[in-house]
């Protein structure tokens, strides 16, 4: 890593969207021959920064210097011709074109009579060869390749224009461990050739395995730039979520923990070995009546995937669920609802609201779906139902005939919560119910959850905000890298820091085991849990 002039230097970047500062005075440097990780929680501004660099967004303040020149690109294509190539999270290729056509799309070599396909395919092979992929037949359709190989082809495509800067926005989210290792080999090769690589990933292990340096963003602000080997996991996570260790420790779990002998009770829901290939490893899970169980873990840890299996949003391909002592098969959401399970999705816009319908229609939809179309809910009952939940959840404006798309995010979320409560669930799964909504609405939703549990409804509460999970849950299931790694029984002494400990500690063990990083470099003294704190349940054996 040369400490010469950076190839990309972004200074004091600000981007404002109506009503919100997406980036606020962010600095970022990228040197030749380094892998630089951009870290931050969801919505911290990582993608915005990348789009500012490539010119997809126009910056409102600050300067971008690329290779010594102040630049302001006008989009990905413009940036690419200046040597800044981007590979996005979803593979942006055309699956029914050939591999060679994909690599060279838009850069085909032209002769006197249109495209010279022979030369184009030769150039494609050459580009693939730089990544050690010369064995691929460039005439075969791209769809014959695995997602991982397609990802590598996407990188070849980015490199075919002789990129000096390569931006990889979450390239690993759909790859398995061996495929990630293959990608890393390619990244190291490119780095050694002097390419500057900007890497975004939610997997901490991967950050420690591949990156030389990292920049942390939080809430659109610059948090700091560090050498990866000088920043341990605790500090990294703390900086990402923005609470120093002292603050984390002071936020105790203040939820009542009754002395309940769960072992003696038949759980409401008991899952054994529940899993789905590629999304969540086989998992055991028990949920008792009136219990709030938190799922904690970073994004992509498998917390959403596990919840979706419980509701039938996705179908489990192994394991079994026992509900109220009876074996059940939950094939689809309608089954889930029928068994008094409700699931509020984290993806409010795509899987939650029906934008062009009214608040009333959105709220009664699940109840109506349960009854079937031939038995419409009488208008009077609709009014009672809708008025009840509009009042109980304080939906504003309190107008049932307004289109839901014209409500704020927080109020949309409340309408959806009303939709699920109206089905009178015994198990309510809330996936990120408080994301992206204002503080007031957040508190109201948290209150509603606590009240539900008092009434005997079991709640699974999923949130990226660990404090929130700790505050509300009686038991916290910790997930990481698509598997459950432990359970914490909540108590007054438990804080978000304990959850971070579990995630970080497991990372070091797992990484050391798999040999991706050496244990010493990433290790740090893991604090022993307080003596009066129930120990974490042992992680499930890996299959």
């Amino acid at each position, binding site marked *: 890593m040369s400490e010469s002039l950076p190839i990309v230097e972004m200074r004091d970047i600000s981007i404002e969207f109506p009503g919100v500062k997406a980036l606020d005075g962010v600095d970022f440097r990228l040197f030749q021959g380094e892998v630089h990780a951009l870290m931050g929680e969801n919505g*911290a501004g990582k993608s915005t920064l990348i789009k500012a660099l490539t010119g997809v967004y126009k910056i409102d303040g600050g300067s971008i210097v690329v290779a010594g020149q102040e630049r302001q690109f006008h989009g990905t294509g413009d940036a690419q011709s200046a040597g800044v190539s981007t590979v996005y999270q979803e593979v942006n290729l055309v699956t029914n074109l050939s591999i060679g056509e994909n690599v060279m799309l838009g850069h085909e070599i032209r002769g006197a009579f249109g495209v010279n396909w022979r030369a184009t395919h030769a150039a494609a092979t050459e580009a693939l060869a730089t990544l050690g992929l010369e064995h691929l037949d460039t005439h075969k359709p791209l769809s014959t390749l695995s997602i991982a190989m397609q990802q590598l082809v996407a990188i070849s495509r980015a490199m075919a224009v002789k990129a000096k800067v390569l931006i990889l926005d979450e390239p690993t989210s759909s790859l398995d461990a061996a495929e990630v290792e293959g990608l890393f080999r390619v990244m190291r090769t490119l780095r050694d050739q002097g390419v500057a690589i900007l890497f975004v990933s939610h997997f901490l292990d991967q950050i420690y395995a591949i990156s030389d340096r990292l920049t942390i963003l939080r809430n659109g602000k610059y948090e700091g730039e560090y050498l990866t080997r000088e920043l341990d996991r605790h500090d990294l996570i703390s900086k990402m979520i923005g609470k120093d260790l002292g603050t984390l420790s002071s936020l105790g779990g203040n939820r009542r923990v009754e002395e309940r002998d769960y072992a003696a009770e038949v759980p409401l829901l008991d899952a054994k070995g529940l899993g789905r290939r590629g999304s969540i490893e086989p998992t055991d899970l028990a949920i008792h009546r009136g219990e709030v169980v938190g799922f904690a873990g970073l994004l992509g840890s498998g917390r959403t995937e596990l919840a979706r299996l419980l509701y039938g949003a996705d179908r489990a391909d192994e394991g079994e669920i026992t509900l109220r002592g009876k074996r059940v098969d939950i094939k689809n*959401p309608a089954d889930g609802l029928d068994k008094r399970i409700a699931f509020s999705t984290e993806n409010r816009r795509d899987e939650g609201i*029906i934008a*062009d319908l009214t608040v009333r229609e959105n709220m009664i939809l699940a109840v*109506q779906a349960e009854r079937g179309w031939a038995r419409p809910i009488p208008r009077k009952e609709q009014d009672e139902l809708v008025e009840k939940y509009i009042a109980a959840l304080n939906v504003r404006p309190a107008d049932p005939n307004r289109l839901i798309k014209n409500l704020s995010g927080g109020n949309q979320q409340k309408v959806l919560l009303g*939709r699920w409560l109206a089905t009178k669930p015994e198990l309510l799964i809330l996936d990120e119910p408080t994301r992206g909504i204002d503080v007031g609405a957040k508190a109201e939703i948290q209150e509603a959850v606590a009240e539900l549990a008092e009434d005997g409804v079991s709640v699974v509460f999923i949130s990226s905000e660990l404090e929130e999970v700790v505050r509300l849950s009686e038991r916290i299931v910790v997930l990481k890298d698509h598997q459950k790694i432990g359970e914490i029984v909540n108590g007054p002494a438990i804080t978000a820091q304990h959850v971070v400990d579990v995630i970080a500690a497991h990372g070091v063990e797992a990484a050391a085991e798999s040999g991706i990083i050496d244990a010493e470099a990433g290790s740090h003294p893991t604090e022993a849990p307080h003596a009066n704190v129930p120990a974490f349940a042992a992680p499930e054996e890996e299959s």
Partner: protein
Amino acid sequence: MSTAARSNWLRELIRKPYFWGVVAIFALLALNVLKDPNYLALSVNPVNGNLVGNVVDILRASAPILMIAVGMSLVIATGGIDLSVGSVMAVSGAVAMVFMKDAGQSGSVGVALGAIGLALLVSAVLGAINGVLVAYIGLQPFISTLIMMLAGRGIAKVITEGQNTSATNDPFRWIANGFVIGLPVVFLLAIIIVIIVGLVVRRSALGLMIEAIGINPKASRMAGIKPSGLLLTVYILSAVLAGIAGIMSVGTVMTVDVSRTGYQMELDAILAVVIGGTSLAGGKFSIGGAVVGALLIATLDKTIVFLGISSSATPAFKAIVIVVLCLLQSDRVRSWFGQRRKPPQLKSDPTPVAPKQQKQEVPA
């Protein structure tokens, strides 16, 4: 104050999606009146007391289009399309004609009912095949119904052995050509069926669920709606309505011409739905709009004949009217007109992408 309230009311009316359809109907009628001031005149046939006139002809002609347009609006609302309605009309007509020809008995009500029942049953089966292909096999609606559109005419030819088939049955003929209280039976029947479908769809939760699926299929599934059964129902309903249209259509002349009956009627139905303001992308639908659309298409067809536009220019004339109508409905075109009246303030904003980003990038 009163002028403001009045302009609000007017604005509300103009914003109705089928407003321009209504305007177009009156414009076409006005055009015809210009050519012949007596165009709108109605007279009573002194022999049987039936109403006679151009408007009555238009209403009669609109009946089959009304049927398929209403079915089509439901299919389109789910985000699909049914290209097979014209062919289903031919099949239905062929089944009815062949049945009556073989049965003879030109005065028998029973034979007529049998023909109608069998024709609708066969139509329902064809619709069910469409529905299964779309809902359970997962084929694209365009492809599934395109297959049925091609297969349907073939089936009709097999049923009639390739011949134009005529039959005589007075009760059957009465459906298409009869009059009740001075009005054509076929139009009254069409309106009654439209009202029944409208009531069923809007009084039950069928309409709500169709719209939910059309607007956001993923979210609908997550809310516990099972789309398969609904889709099957909608495609069967569309085919049965097409079957009724086929009966009305062959009943007029008591002959089925397998290559002409219902020919390109699917396009008329789609146009009627679009004119009625239902988006081809699915979602919100308006049965009232589909009715306006169907009436407009019937008016347009009759106007073309009345004005004596040569048959070779007919499609072009039809296309012009519909393009103008669609332009008037387009938000973008209307905003251009709006902009020309207001100072052009939108143009000064050089980054039109900014508002769109907000949704994705607002920090949590």
